[in-house]
């Protein structure tokens, strides 16, 4: 274990308080003490209803909240903080686009292109938009390695294609899609491009201006932040055209007996009392990431992925899903063990205090596409270390034996 490992791990209270090797970071990450403290500090010193009160405490709460918005904007290189809408999570962000943009601007016969590897959160909202507007959802199919290509998208684009919605990093393959190239194809054909950044924003630098995506959705809880806070980035001109998604307090200018005019973006999308404590926590999580920097983060995650991956390749009866190159996995290794159901796999890992996830990981159409009922996934964070990987590998090696296979 390097000194760096010791230092990082020590910042996560759960990892000290519980005897666990935590390898389910793609589901949610653990939270460093600095984030927990920042949320606590907000509630102990600054809490009031932001944007509403005309007194000092509420003004401070508002400042905290808007400062957090700026931090998020800077982190993903948005032009200005008004392009950041706070939501509960990536799922809500994607639904916001679907309900506000999709439902209002799509027409019968329009097309939405998504990939077969999309998380249900970037799939069901589009199915619902299609059902309600008469639009159709078309699927970009991936190969066994988990690849999709811009040329494929190029061939699928028609005059009726209005939206293209893709994940940047797949939560099953761990593979990164070339979002910049896909967005370029979409734009050239006049479509809007939606990027699901739930798995990418925590692990790689994301620059919305360089990628030129129209929307980016992500969750705070997968990037060391609290649960219940997430964000939607949208280009200002698009957000301005879009009608509100939820109606109520805080999102209006004037309300009369027969109608209302709505507040400016982003407030028109943030109806009701906001999650200021969560936003402060998310901003602190970003500071935490920045204090190490993505160079260290990606280097650590790659090293650990390589260690796990190369060993796993030599374990009999273990099949890794997706690319044969560890570099394409970004800390996510999904696998099956021949003869052992993924739920049994996860239960055995649990008995050895190793947390991995089993099931369809909210990508059921992708499992069908790959002819698998379900799989097991281990997913690393940069606070994991070699010992964690070794513990994981030990259990994996003995797993078939524990299930009664004689070898």
């Amino acid at each position, binding site marked *: 274990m390097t000194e760096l490992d010791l230092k990082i791990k020590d910042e996560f209270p759960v990892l000290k308080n519980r005897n666990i090797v935590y390898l389910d970071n793609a589901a949610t990450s653990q939270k460093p003490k600095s984030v927990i403290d920042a949320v606590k500090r907000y509630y102990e010193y600054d809490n009031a209803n932001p944007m509403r009160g005309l007194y000092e405490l509420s003004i401070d709460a508002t400042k905290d909240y808007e400062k957090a918005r700026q931090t998020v904007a800077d982190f993903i290189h948005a032009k200005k903080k008004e392009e950041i809408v706070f939501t509960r999570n990536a799922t809500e962000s994607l639904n916001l686009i679907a309900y506000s943009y999709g439902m209002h601007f799509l027409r019968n016969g329009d097309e939405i292109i998504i990939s077969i590897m999309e998380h249900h959160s970037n799939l069901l909202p589009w199915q619902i938009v299609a059902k309600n507007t008469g639009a159709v959802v078309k699927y970009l199919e991936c190969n066994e390695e988990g690849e999709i290509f811009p040329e494929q998208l190029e061939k699928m684009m028609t005059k009726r294609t209005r939206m293209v919605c893709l994940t940047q990093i797949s939560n099953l393959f761990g593979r990164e899609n070339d979002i910049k190239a896909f967005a370029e194809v979409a734009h050239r054909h006049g479509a809007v491009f939606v990027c699901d950044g739930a798995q990418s924003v925590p692990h790689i630098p994301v620059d919305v201006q360089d990628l030129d995506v129209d929307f980016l959705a992500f969750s705070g809880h997968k990037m060391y932040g609290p649960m219940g806070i997430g964000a939607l980035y949208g280009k200002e001109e698009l957000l301005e055209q879009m009608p509100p998604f939820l109606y109520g307090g805080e999102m209006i200018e004037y309300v009369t007996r027969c109608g209302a005019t709505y507040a400016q973006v982003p407030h028109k999308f943030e109806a009701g009392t906001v999650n200021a404590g969560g936003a402060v926590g998310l901003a602190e999580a970003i500071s935490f990431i920045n204090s190490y920097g993505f160079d260290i983060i990606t280097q650590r995650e790659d090293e650990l992925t390589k260690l796990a991956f190369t060993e796993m390749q030599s374990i009999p009866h273990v099949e890794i899903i997706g690319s044969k190159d560890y570099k394409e996995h970004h800390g996510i290794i999904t696998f099956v063990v021949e003869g052992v*159901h993924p739920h049994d796999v996860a*239960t055995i890992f649990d008995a050895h205090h190793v947390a991995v996830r089993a*099931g369809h990981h909210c990508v059921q159409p992708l499992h069908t596409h790959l002819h698998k009922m379900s799989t097991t996934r281990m997913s690393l964070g940069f606070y994991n270390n070699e010992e964690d990987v070794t513990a994981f590998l030990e259990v994996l090696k003995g797993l078939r034996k524990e299930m009664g296979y004689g070898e």
Partner: protein
Amino acid sequence: MANNTFYNEILTEHNIHPTHKHEIEGANFTLEGVNPSCGDDIILSLKVEDDVITDGAYVGDGCAVSQASADMMLDLVIGRTKEEALRLSDIFLRMIKGEITEEEHEELEEAGILQDVSHMPARVKCAVLGWHTMEEMLREGKTGITGTEGF
């Protein structure tokens, strides 16, 4: 590595070398049970003559818990009356909720090894799939393939 999980020899044997995983002739009840969230799927068949379960079998896919549980259930109920089978099923389902006596536990014979599932909420559905399917058959006379979902 010591085998300190609840996957003991009895469970793994019933999973890898099941006694009753095959088709049978002359079944008068056949019902499919499915856990859609995890993909456990069994088709249970029973031959009931004069209220006595004279034969039974299952086919299907799923985790070791769901498959072994169905196999152990059939070991227990073949040769018993419908009423007896339902009584044992009731004991089994209560065991999974952690509500049985020592004597009742013994009546379940090998199926009693699944007692630990009462501490594993994620695995309850797997353990009860076969039993639940049998109950629906015997109690409500349900029969058919595709339709029934485990709870």
